[in-house]
């Protein structure tokens, strides 16, 4: 019997039970659509975040006084910071690099903000007057703090979009006063919203001069050193120089990340997350497959007599087997195609709110997986059908 003939028989059998076929397919449709949709969201979010980071420029380096990169696997203690950076460390790096890079010491610390009766939690991001070159926010209005304000430790602050909306709703914040950890500050600028990104909400930050931050936090330490290379090609060279400058004091307790590395780590992390999402959606595909097996088993016992008739007139084991396998595969493949359509359509609609990216491999994976589900879950019922004894099958009522 030809394959075309098997297809025709299978198609006729599916058409004879339209409602049941559709419901069986629904399981596969939902499974495939879920896989495609979740992978699309995962990929879309990753692409957007990676794009954001790339937008910062690939010439940034970040130095931390801890060994994040090395083997550090020695249990939970691996990330313990034994010694903090101080301003001298930043100066040492700056001297070493000279004109080839901008070096900005940065403090990041939690803070409580208050304006009038409104209070909120936020993060301090403090740098030197050159911080404007490494911070990513775009000014909405106002000005960045000046060299004089940095040197003098002035109580001036630029606020992120979230802070502005929380503390100064519907008013121009510039020239207003607010308190940070109980100290009075003058708002001199506010920034455009950037949207959520990797290190928390970048909009929920306040930008102040480093000297001021050290004073209100009562510390001489800094959190990290940000270095911006003048030429992107020099990044690796500069990285080596930064290490050399800091090694005498920090030894191996030192990490210098390039933007590229951060990207790689992040992209890997988000990729893992996407695979996990796809795996969860895959479970629904599995359930859909079991639905197919269930229906095929019902179908086999319902059509026992038909199988007997076919065998009596000369159907071989293989003919019966292929008829039922093809039926199951058709259910899952048609379901897979409808699911792919639904998932792709859903991703298009969702694009309004979430970045989504339908990838070819997700489509191919979902399609072949669903076909595989059909074969896998179709074989057992088909085998059961094909091994029926013709006379037993004919007697079946």
């Amino acid at each position: 019997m030809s394959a075309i003939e098997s297809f025709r028989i299978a198609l006729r059998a599916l058409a004879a039970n339209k409602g049941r076929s559709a419901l069986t397919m629904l399981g596969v449709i939902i499974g495939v659509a879920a896989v495609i949709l979740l992978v699309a969201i995962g990929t879309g979010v990753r692409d957007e975040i990676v794009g954001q980071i790339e937008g910062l420029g690939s010439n940034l380096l970040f130095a931390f006084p801890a060994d994040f990169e090395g083997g550090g696997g020695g249990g939970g203690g691996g990330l313990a910071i034994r010694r903090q950076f101080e301003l001298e460390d930043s100066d040492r790096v700056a001297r070493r690099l000279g004109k080839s890079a901008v070096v900005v010491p940065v403090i990041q610390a939690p803070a409580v903000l208050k304006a009038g009766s409104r209070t909120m939690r936020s993060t301090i991001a403090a740098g030197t007057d050159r911080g404007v070159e490494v911070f990513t926010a775009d000014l909405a209005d106002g000005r960045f703090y000046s060299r004089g304000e940095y040197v003098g430790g002035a109580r001036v602050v630029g606020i992120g979009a979230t802070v502005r909306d929380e503390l100064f709703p519907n008013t121009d914040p510039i020239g207003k006063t607010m308190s940070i950890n109980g100290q009075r500050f003058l708002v001199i600028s506010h920034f455009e919203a950037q949207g959520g990104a990797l290190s928390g909400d970048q909009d929920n930050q306040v930008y102040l001069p480093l000297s001021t931050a050290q004073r209100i936090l009562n510390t001489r330490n800094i959190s990290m050193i940000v270095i911006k290379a003048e030429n992107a090609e020099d990044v690796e060279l500069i990285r080596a120089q930064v290490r050399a400058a800091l090694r005498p004091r920090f030894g191996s307790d030192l990490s210098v990340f390039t933007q590229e590395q951060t990207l790689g780590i992040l992209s890997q992390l988000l990729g893992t997350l996407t695979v996990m999402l796809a795996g969860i959606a895959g479970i629904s595909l599995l359930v859909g497959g079991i639905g197919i097996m269930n229906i095929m088993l019902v179908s086999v016992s319902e059509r026992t007599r038909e199988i007997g008739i076919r065998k009596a007139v000369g159907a071989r084991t293989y003919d019966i087997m292929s008829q039922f396998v093809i039926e199951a595969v058709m259910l899952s493949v048609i379901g897979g195609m409808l699911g792919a359509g639904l998932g792709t359509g859903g991703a298009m609609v969702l694009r309004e709110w979430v970045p989504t990216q339908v990838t070819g491999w997700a489509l191919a994976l979902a399609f072949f997986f669903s076909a595989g589900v059909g074969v896998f879950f179709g074989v057992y019922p088909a085998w059961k059908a094909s091994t029926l004894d013709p006379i037993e099958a004919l007697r079946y009522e």
Partner: protein
Amino acid sequence: MTGDGLEPGLGACDDGRVILEARGVTKVYRMEDVEVHALCGVDLQICEGRMLAVMGPSGSGKSTLMHIVGLLDRPTEGSVMVEGEEVSHMSANRLAAVRNRRIGFVFQSFNLLPRTSALANVELPLVYAGVSGSERRRRATAALERVGLGDRLSHHPSQLSGGQQQRVAIARALVTGPAILLADEPTGNLDSRSGVEVMGVLQELNSQGVTTIIVTHDAKVAAHAERVVHVSDGRVVEDERVERRVIAASTTLGAGTGTVR
């Protein structure tokens, strides 16, 4: 219809060869530790081109005998020869091929595929014989015309009368051009008029050279054959020649199936 040399208990064919033969066929069913002997050492020879009836009350083992000589079932002991070839030890797939090419079946309950046209039902054995679509349609149409249903090709079984359904089943049985036609109570579910029609078709086919075996409990049906084998309690108890054979075509005017030689 002259002396064929059919002696009771013997199947010697003086003017033809033995087309189907059972030798010491025994069938034992095991049901919850109880052994049921459906057949106990049946020997039967069927001559090519003849019409034979296997008769017996229900439970006598006649249907089991037909299933075994029709290769739908295997004997517990003994052997079956189709056209001189031993088939009892063939694989299921080879048996399927033999059924497909050499044997046609007609069942009491028709056993047509529901929701499937008469034409598609008749095409079914050709599908498994690997015949191409257009050739299949041509041969199936011809087979349906042969049983007088040339105008019912696209009707589904539910749209046909019992007699018409049985004629579709006969068309399906003969479409591959088999040498042997096995009919298990072919008139059992039919009114008497349709029954006569169906017997007329079977006699007509037999007159064209198809060896025909009818299993029945009804002496009137058996009288359409040339020879009747009586089965009781799993044994052949009598093998007789029919003295006054009934010719279906002469009993009814409506059948229009021609004459028997």
